[in-house]
């Protein structure tokens, strides 16, 4: 083996080793890297007890109710719902039926008191006319279903 080939083999071998190590570390950290848990995971008892954490999901249609400065809404992943109360300014993209991430604590009564609300944007970028068309199509589809 020429020294040049030997060095190349060493470098490739080293990279593979680092790759495997990184994969193992990431696998071990898996649940800690996630920014938020879903309402179903909270229902399954996977949320940290007595600590602040984040829940991510959709703001349920028709659930946003304002009471003075406090906003009450329900965050859902369509399987489980969690009621949330938040006092403060909501981001521009916060809307019913859109994604949101809330940070706060879960009370003993199952109500989540948020200290921070973040809007989650999806990967779709389209002009208003196209968005309108999509909404219309979805409405039409919904009305077709029994």
């Amino acid at each position, binding site marked *: 083996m020429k020294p040049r080939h030997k060095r190349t083999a060493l470098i490739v071998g080293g990279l593979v080793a680092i790759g495997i190590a990184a994969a193992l570390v990431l696998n071990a950290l898996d649940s800690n890297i996630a920014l938020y848990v879903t309402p179903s995971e909270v229902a399954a008892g996977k949320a940290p007890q007595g600590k602040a954490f984040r829940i991510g999901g959709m703001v349920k249609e028709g659930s946003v109710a304002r009471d003075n400065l406090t906003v009450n809404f329900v965050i859902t992943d369509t399987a489980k719902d969690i009621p949330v109360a938040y006092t403060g300014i909501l981001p521009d*993209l916060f809307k019913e039926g859109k994604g949101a991430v809330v940070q706060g604590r879960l009370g003993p009564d199952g109500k989540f008191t948020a200290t921070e609300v*973040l809007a989650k944007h999806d990967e779709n*970028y389209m002009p208003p006319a196209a968005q309108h068309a999509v909404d219309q199509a979805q409405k039409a589809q919904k009305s077709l279903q029994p």
Partner: protein
Amino acid sequence: MSNRLINWFKFASPQSFYPLAGKMIPWFWALTAVFGIAGLWLSFFVAPTDAVQGEGYRIIFIHVPASWMSMFIYLVMAAWAGLGLALNTRLSGMMAQALAPTGALMAFLSLWTGALWGKPMWGAWWVWDARLTSELILFFLYIGFIALQAAIDDPRRADKAGAILALVGVVNIPIIYFSVKWWNTLHQGASVSLTKSPSMAQTMLWGMLLMALAFWMYSIAVALMRVRAIILERETHTEWVKELEAVKR
């Protein structure tokens, strides 16, 4: 080697690469201008307003190309560094050194524009989610590479140390790219990828791709300029540098 169509090894020597790079630089600057002007015009005057985000979405025309470049430049830099480590070619280390500052700039732009977009859209400048954090690590890797190379006086040893750091850091690139798939992140998934049709309006997409091309050309032009400076600096003592017209004067 002589029966090859192009003798690549010839251009691996700084002496023959120096004039070649000099000839290419104006062309890449010209392409930067063409793509940049076309891209900016499309981005600001043709592309429609986004239905949900309004005008604020236009930051993607800088943010996405900068993020792509920050990852791609790192891969190229690491490839050069690895080549230098394996084959002991002189030019490889210089190329890696020349690419690092541009990569750092791109990573910085990506983080900064992302923060400016995040405040109005998400409601936060910064979130410790997997995508943002791994991009920040990429920025630190660039800074670390630059600092490590600068800290060692002997260029050969500096190249070697830098190369090892660069190669180890490659692990971070797939993590950045796939973070939005692997974990729950606040950052949205990819709008443009090789495996599915893009989820954005045509003109927006074209604006973004033209801007990406402009960033490519800019990065190449700047890297070539920088590598020429590095070649002169490292080869000052050689005959061919002393005989250069520009140096004599």
